[in-house]
């Protein structure tokens, strides 16, 4: 379980808190999605989890342990993160890249143990990248690269899996595959924390939705609690209707053009 407890973060030389007392729990076995407009504090949440920013108040706990009490490798052994953007500056094989997930588990001179190799094999199989093992990471398509990044994070192990905007550059099929993989990771008992702009997709895959706005939690709960037109309109400051997806029945957000309300408003 990942817990943010009344977390406050303010960046240097800023007059406003990036996070102004945020409490979120992401239990094991579920997908918890954090959504919200640009600048609402989503990325700061991830940075606080990694110990990259120092909270002015509150705490981040992983399985009950405050991350400020842990050194960086210890955090990395508990939480695996797929960051928003990543590009290898130099060629490296997919297998070597995935093996980097084992970095926090060994010392500088440490060689791969059988356990490390097994973890990498299992992770690559789960993300369906085994057949790419010998390819260079610079010779992958966008979808392949994203699966390989998931495999690296899976190889890292730990209790929690964080994905920050994991589908930004993916087409529809790869996007769906990525979300399904996140669902499988959760069902194997990890706490999955997903940060995303894709409200409609998130609404179909997340067990819990947390809507951030200006560093505060504007709404949290099930998809039906959060995906409400009046809440979303206030947070995004944009005319929005929430309909039900005709094919799968999940709540679905439709942003309107300003000043063009539909004649019959559909709302849940």
């Amino acid at each position: 379980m990942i817990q943010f407890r009344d977390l406050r973060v303010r960046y240097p030389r800023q007059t406003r808190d990036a996070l102004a007392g945020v409490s979120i729990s992401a239990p094991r076995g579920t997908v918890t999605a954090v959504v919200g407009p640009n600048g609402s504090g989503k990325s700061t949440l991830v940075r606080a989890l990694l110990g990259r920013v120092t909270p002015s108040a509150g705490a981040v706990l992983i399985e009950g342990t405050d991350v400020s009490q842990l050194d960086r490798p210890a955090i990395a052994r508990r939480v695996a993160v797929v960051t928003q953007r990543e590009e290898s500056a130099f060629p490296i094989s997919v297998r070597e890249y995935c093996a980097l997930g084992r970095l926090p588990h060994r010392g500088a001179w440490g060689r791969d143990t059988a356990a490390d190799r097994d973890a990498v094999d299992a992770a690559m199989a789960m993300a369906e990248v085994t057949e790419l093992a010998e390819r260079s990471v610079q010779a992958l398509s966008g979808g392949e690269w994203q699966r390989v990044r998931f495999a690296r994070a899976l190889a890292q192990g730990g209790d929690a899996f964080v994905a920050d905007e994991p589908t930004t550059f993916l087409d529809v099929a790869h996007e769906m595959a990525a979300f399904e993989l996140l669902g499988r990771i959760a069902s194997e008992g990890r706490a999955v924390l997903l940060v995303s702009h894709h409200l409609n997709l998130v609404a179909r895959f997340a067990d819990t939705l947390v809507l951030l706005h200006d560093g505060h939690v504007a709404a949290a709960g099930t998809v039906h609690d959060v995906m409400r037109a009046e809440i979303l309109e206030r947070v995004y400051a944009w005319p929005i209707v929430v309909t039900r997806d005709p094919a799968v029945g999940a709540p679905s957000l439709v942003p309107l053009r300003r000043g063009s309300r539909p004649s019959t408003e559909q709302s849940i």
Partner: protein
Amino acid sequence: MTFGRWAFLVAAVALVALAGLMLGTIPVPPGDIWSALRGDGNSTTVFVVRELRLPRVLLATLLGAGLGVSGAALQGVLRNPLAEPYLLGVSGGAAVGAVLAVSTGVAIALVPIAAFGGAIAAVTLALFVAHATHGRGDPRVLIMAGVVVGAFANAVIMVLMANADASTVRGALWWMMGSVADATWTQIAWLSLYVVAGGAALVALARTLDALALGEDSAAGLGVDVDRAARRIYLVASLVAASTVAAAGLVGFVGLVVPHIARRFGARGHRVLLLASAATGSLLVVAADLVARTALPPAELPLGAVTAMVGVPFFLITLRRLT
């Protein structure tokens, strides 16, 4: 990298080193090299091989290895394929130190120490400037700091040179063009200490370099203390570079291009890359020195110019064949 390619690389270094011992104004047949190294046979041959060529070949080997690992490490940590060992002001600082020493007429033996001191001062200044501007881990800020410190050093050199006499200018210029001609065993001992210890430290940080090459956020996610690790790598790589400059002056191009040749040769991941860059660097510098002293006898070409002349076609061939 496959075993075959490693074997090829090591054999190539050995072969070029052997050629370095054989060729010159007095050619020594390969059969006589071993006995000359042991001190047997014609005394002139023994002197030429043991006292003139062996130190030179060894110094060139160490110089190339040092520049190779330093360049590979800096390219990785700065995520920049154009990074090279002199980037953080090493060359400028060393040149200021050396020119100051030459122009104040101190003992010639102290010039390397002055160069080393100047290099360390410049790197410290660049790291300090980057730190003071809150850039810390940001490679772009550090590169700019290095460029600024280098430009300042150049200005200082120009001022010093403008008022120096002709012999000082010539001495300083020769030093800046790099040479292993006057290799001494003391230089070899010192340089081997820095190159071996620094190289080992960088190889120990190879996984961290792999992580840093992915970007700061990713490295942090893998448990790397980005600022601290990067600072350590800058320091070690610059120390190795400074020690090469103190031993042999400025030899450009090697640290920039050698890691790329090693990558083209199949070196993936920094552990292999650092070792392959050391071997490739040795190969390039020993070969360049051989050309420098045999191409237009009895004149010697500046080593720094020849490394580029040998390195460019070498680089183009690997680019063609291995892509």
